[in-house]
């Protein structure tokens, strides 16, 4: 029990530190104990954060939503379609296709980023939303999960009867399979969301324009400037808190789903 308590402190300490530090005025950061609250300045810190450089932080937040939320949503849909087809349709080359996609899981995303940059520079996509958004929608792991889940959740007989009723394949997918697969689709969405949200190398390679940055890249740049502009420190801290709290809350609310996903992911 003592061991567990110690570990819990370890896991929560940086987050607790961040909460405390976000409530302090810049001057108190170094001057007061980092683990104790001092003057409550959170709202002023938030105001400064969101108005700094013409409100660029709000823009970064919006970009993050576009890259991570929209990207994961589109990615989940196309993974679901493909995984469902691989699970439920029999066709030539099916196993080969699946092996190729599965091989994609093992390609390090950082090794993809540099050649993608060159290809995108040649086509002029570099330094646009598409440069980060398009590669992010591809999740081979999502297809792998979707195939497992479609096999497990969608009974073949149900599809047969929908076909007998004269429903087309897409109609069957969206009105029958999609509903049965919904819990697992939430899982795929969560995993892909985290993968995009975590992918720092790709946006860093692709983007020079500050107005296109996701929060992570923006805060990284600000953090690099704190030596010259110490006042940025408080905004980096408050910005970090603002960016992770909604995600943590989302994860706590949806814990049922990531637990299913982890269990399925550990099968192989």
């Amino acid at each position, binding site marked *: 029990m003592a061991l567990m308590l110690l570990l819990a402190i370890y*896991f929560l300490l940086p*987050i607790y530190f961040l909460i405390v530090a976000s409530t302090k005025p810049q001057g108190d950061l170094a001057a007061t104990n980092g683990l104790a609250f001092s003057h409550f300045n959170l709202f002023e810190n938030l105001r400064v954060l969101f108005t700094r450089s013409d409100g660029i932080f709000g823009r970064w937040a919006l970009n993050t939503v576009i890259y991570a939320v929209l990207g994961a949503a589109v990615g989940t849909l196309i993974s679901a379609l493909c995984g469902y087809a691989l699970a439920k349709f029999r*066709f030539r080359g099916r196993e080969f296709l699946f092996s190729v996609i599965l091989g994609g899981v093992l390609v390090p995303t950082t090794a993809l980023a540099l050649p993608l940059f060159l290809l995108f520079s040649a086509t002029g996509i570099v330094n646009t939303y598409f440069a980060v958004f398009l590669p992010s929608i591809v999740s081979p792991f999502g297809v792998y999960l979707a195939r*497992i889940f479609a096999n497990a959740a969608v009974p*073949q007989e149900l599809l047969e009867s929908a*076909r007998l009723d004269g429903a087309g394949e897409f109609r069957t997918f969206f009105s029958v399979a999609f509903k049965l697969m919904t819990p697992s689709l939430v899982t795929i969405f969560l995993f892909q969301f985290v993968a995009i949200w975590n992918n720092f*190398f790709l946006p860093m390679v692709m983007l020079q324009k500050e107005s296109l940055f996701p929060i992570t890249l923006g805060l990284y740049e600000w953090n690099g400037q704190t030596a010259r502009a110490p006042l940025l420190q408080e905004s980096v801290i408050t910005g970090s808190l603002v960016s992770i709290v909604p995600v943590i809350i989302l994860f706590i609310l949806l814990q049922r789903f990531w637990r299913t996903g*982890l269990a399925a992911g550990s099968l192989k």
Partner: protein
Amino acid sequence: MTDIATRATRVVRSPGGRRRLNGGGPRAGTIFAFVIPFFLPFVLFYLVPVGYALWQSVRVVRRTGGQYGTSYTTFGGFEQYGKVFQNDEFWSSIGRIGLFGIVQVPVMLFVALVIALLLDTPLLRLKSAFRIAAFMPYAVPGVIAAIMWSYLYSPQLSPVVDLLNDIGLKPDFLGPGAVLWSAANISTWLWTGYNMLIMFSALQSIPQELYEAAKLDGASNWAIAWRIKVPIIAPSIVLTTVFSIIGTLQLYAEPAVLRQISSNISSTFTPNMLAYAVASGNNYQQAAAISVVIAVITFVLSFGFMRLTSKRAGL
């Protein structure tokens, strides 16, 4: 879950499914329409870049007639790879990451396993709260985690450094010997809970009757944990190890953030940082060769580890 999956595989292979080969089923065009929305981007943003990197890595830039001649790229065989293997910075980045992985991965997975086993015993209270606490770092991106920890490492701001100073220790988390382990701590903090949950999910799917039988034979809780539970979840442990190996070789964000506050991290600290530095110097062919070597090492280590363990454990 194991249950569902085995059942699922059976569905695929069942004779009922086979029948569909000759029976009705969707037409080729329909199947194509389901697969293509994923497969087209997959080809464009996965397969083509991999091919392009391979192609780039066998090209070299040459000049016609001396230093001031015009440059052109041409086929260079394995010249770029030769340069990678002769590059001291490449070997030191590999050595650093190797040392990092050999220490960090086992420590992290051992802690994760211990927590998973503890959570699986009936002894403990407040389990779900603890599980969430341990998993929380997974929701934090590497960059943000590194920023948070860098504040905890920095001598000016850190309450941890203050505390350790008070008890007479003079820690220097960003010093030349320590900074690699400070980065390792960030990875450990980020991923222990995730790995723990994979192992914990596997533990939960073990049928309880197994334990009852062992108890009747007089096995202690420890014996049950190490002799029954651990061998059964061995595939999950292998999987988390492979993921961790891949993750270690890709390390970029955490050292890049620490570099902003520590002069003890060079721009070529990890293989990926080296690749990026070389690409920034406009030597794309060399950067491509480095990326390919990193990817190949990743493949060899992951597959090698899987083969080795599956042979030994007879999985």
